[in-house]
């Protein structure tokens, strides 16, 4: 246990940072605790920002996260960290202030990938969605009644935004470069199910299509998108949903190993320097942390999952408080609600060479799919049948044989399909980390 003279700093005031700080206190740390946040807001919950906030059912500022433990912390909000000096053990904030640390938790999260043409990205009516202020601005534009919404990107955020537009009765087109919605996470086989769901609800979907340019009407407000095939899609509101980049730029010069795909960590959660040596004063957690997972060997992964931010934040808090180091090995899990359907996943689908429908039937809208790689189960995805999922999580954690046994006494042998991941899978910068959903 570290003593009460130690100074602990948490950089990042979102879910992982908050749960990490609580875990430090719960583990008995009684010394000074400083929490640094780039945004002026107290920690808030992100999942509603792409769902109930957009439909107006929940106010953008109503999603504050509960504090579960008294923190007695010094909050520095609205003050992004801009530098880390590990020799002097100080974090520098945007205003020039420096904060000394003896233990440091890095939980700076990720940012929405911007539209590559910055001038087009600044046109009125063009949005990205990551934070509460983004959601408030997007909600305001949606409530104003746009004529035609365009969503660029068929990942989880793009699908959830398109679903919210239909909830509001707005015409919406979704353009995706891949062969199907959610194809990089679920594969085209299940992506086709998602596509049918949204098409049935009135979303116009154009897959294998690429937006090349956003054009305005001469007044600086977006008017249409130009596609690679030369066609145009009219749009007076555009949501750019192209995934996320990890917030690691402030670590330049720190000697730590990072890029826009994450900050490298060892199996316990300590950060690694450029020589792959751990700095045992510093841990990372949440979206920003890229770590080795025992179930998915051979590469480090960074997960943008709500439950992961909680679990790894709590793990890092215990680690920094001086509890016995342990390996972080929670089975990844996420959920997404879109168009009235709840999609839940355990494990990671990346690298799967087969998928079976183990329970239910996609035609009936309720089913569970299991993904396998080299003869073992690596992931399971449920559509509106979450109660089956925990049993498959156990099989994934145990590396059980794939394909699994058929799910019912009346079921025949399971048919193994190709998952249909787009090729090349994971080729864009940052895609090594796109192993889950971009949900928060």
């Amino acid at each position, binding site marked *: 246990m570290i003593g009460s003279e130690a100074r602990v700093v948490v950089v990042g005031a979102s879910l992982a940072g908050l749960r990490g700080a609580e875990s430090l206190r719960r583990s008995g740390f009684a010394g000074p605790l400083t929490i640094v946040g780039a945004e*002026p*807001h*107290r920690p*808030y*919950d992100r*999942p*509603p920002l792409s769902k*109930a*906030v957009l*439909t*107006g*059912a*929940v*106010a*953008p*500022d*109503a*999603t*504050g*996260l*509960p*504090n*579960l433990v*008294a*923190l*007695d*912390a*010094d*909050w*520095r*909000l*609205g*003050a992004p960290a801009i530098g880390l000096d590990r020799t002097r053990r100080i974090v520098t*904030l945007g*205003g020039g*202030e420096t904060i000394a640390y003896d233990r440091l938790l890095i939980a700076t999260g990720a940012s929405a990938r911007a539209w590559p043409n910055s001038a087009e990205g600044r046109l009125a009516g063009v949005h990205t969605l990551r934070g509460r202020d983004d959601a*408030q601005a997007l*909600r*305001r534009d949606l*409530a104003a009644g746009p004529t035609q919404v365009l969503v660029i990107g068929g990942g989880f955020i793009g699908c959830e935004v398109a679903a919210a537009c239909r*909830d509001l009765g707005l015409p919406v087109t979704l353009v995706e470069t891949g062969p199907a919605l959610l194809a990089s996470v679920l594969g085209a086989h299940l992506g086709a199910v998602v596509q049918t769901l949204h098409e049935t609800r009135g979303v116009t979907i154009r897959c294998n299509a690429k937006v090349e340019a956003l054009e305005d009407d001469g007044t600086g407000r977006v008017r249409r998108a130009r596609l690679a095939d030369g066609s145009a899609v009219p749009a007076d509101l555009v949501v750019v949903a192209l995934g996320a980049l990890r917030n690691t730029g402030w670590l330049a010069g720190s000697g730590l190993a990072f890029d826009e795909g994450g900050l490298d960590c060892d199996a316990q959660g300590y950060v690694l320097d450029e020589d792959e040596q751990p700095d045992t004063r510093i841990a990372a957690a949440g979206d920003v942390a890229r770590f080795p997972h025992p179930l998915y060997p051979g590469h480090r992964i960074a997960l943008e999952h*709500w*439950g992961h931010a*909680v679990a790894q934040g709590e793990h890092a808090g215990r680690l920094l408080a001086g509890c016995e180091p342990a390996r972080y090995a929670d089975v990844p*899990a*996420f*959920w997404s*609600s879109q168009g*009235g*359907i*709840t999609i*839940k996943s355990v494990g990671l689908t990346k690298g799967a060479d087969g998928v079976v429908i183990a329970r239910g039937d996609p035609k009936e809208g*309720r089913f569970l799919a299991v993904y396998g790689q080299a003869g073992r189960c690596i992931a399971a995805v449920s559509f*509106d*049948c*979450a*109660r089956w999922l925990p049993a498959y999580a156990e099989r994934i954690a145990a590396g059980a044989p794939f394909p699994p046994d058929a799910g019912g006494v009346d079921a025949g042998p399971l048919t193994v399909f190709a998952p249909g991941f787009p090729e090349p899978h994971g080729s864009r910068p940052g895609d090594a980390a796109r192993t889950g959903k971009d949900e928060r």
Partner: protein
Amino acid sequence: MPERNFGRSADIPLGMSDNSAPSVTGSSPAPSAAGLRVTVDLNLCQAYAQCCYAAPDHFVLKGREALHYDPAPSTGARADIERARIACPVQAIRVENTGTSRR
């Protein structure tokens, strides 16, 4: 089912937030207005809907498994919210009372 708006008016203007800290650094955020904060771990949630019976004004199941909930109920709802928290078979509901000073 009609759309249900939770908590305070959803489309409040900027600057009217009761959940934001001052944007100055070096100070603790001002204490929040009295209220509750609720999150549900939707990884755990299996749509047993017990919360919807315990606190029907604050938890609604849409479709088969999509739980919609009020993340910021007023303190007047405390008894209902507590009943929902206890009733959850998978203990997925977390509640904080923000009526007290927070640091």
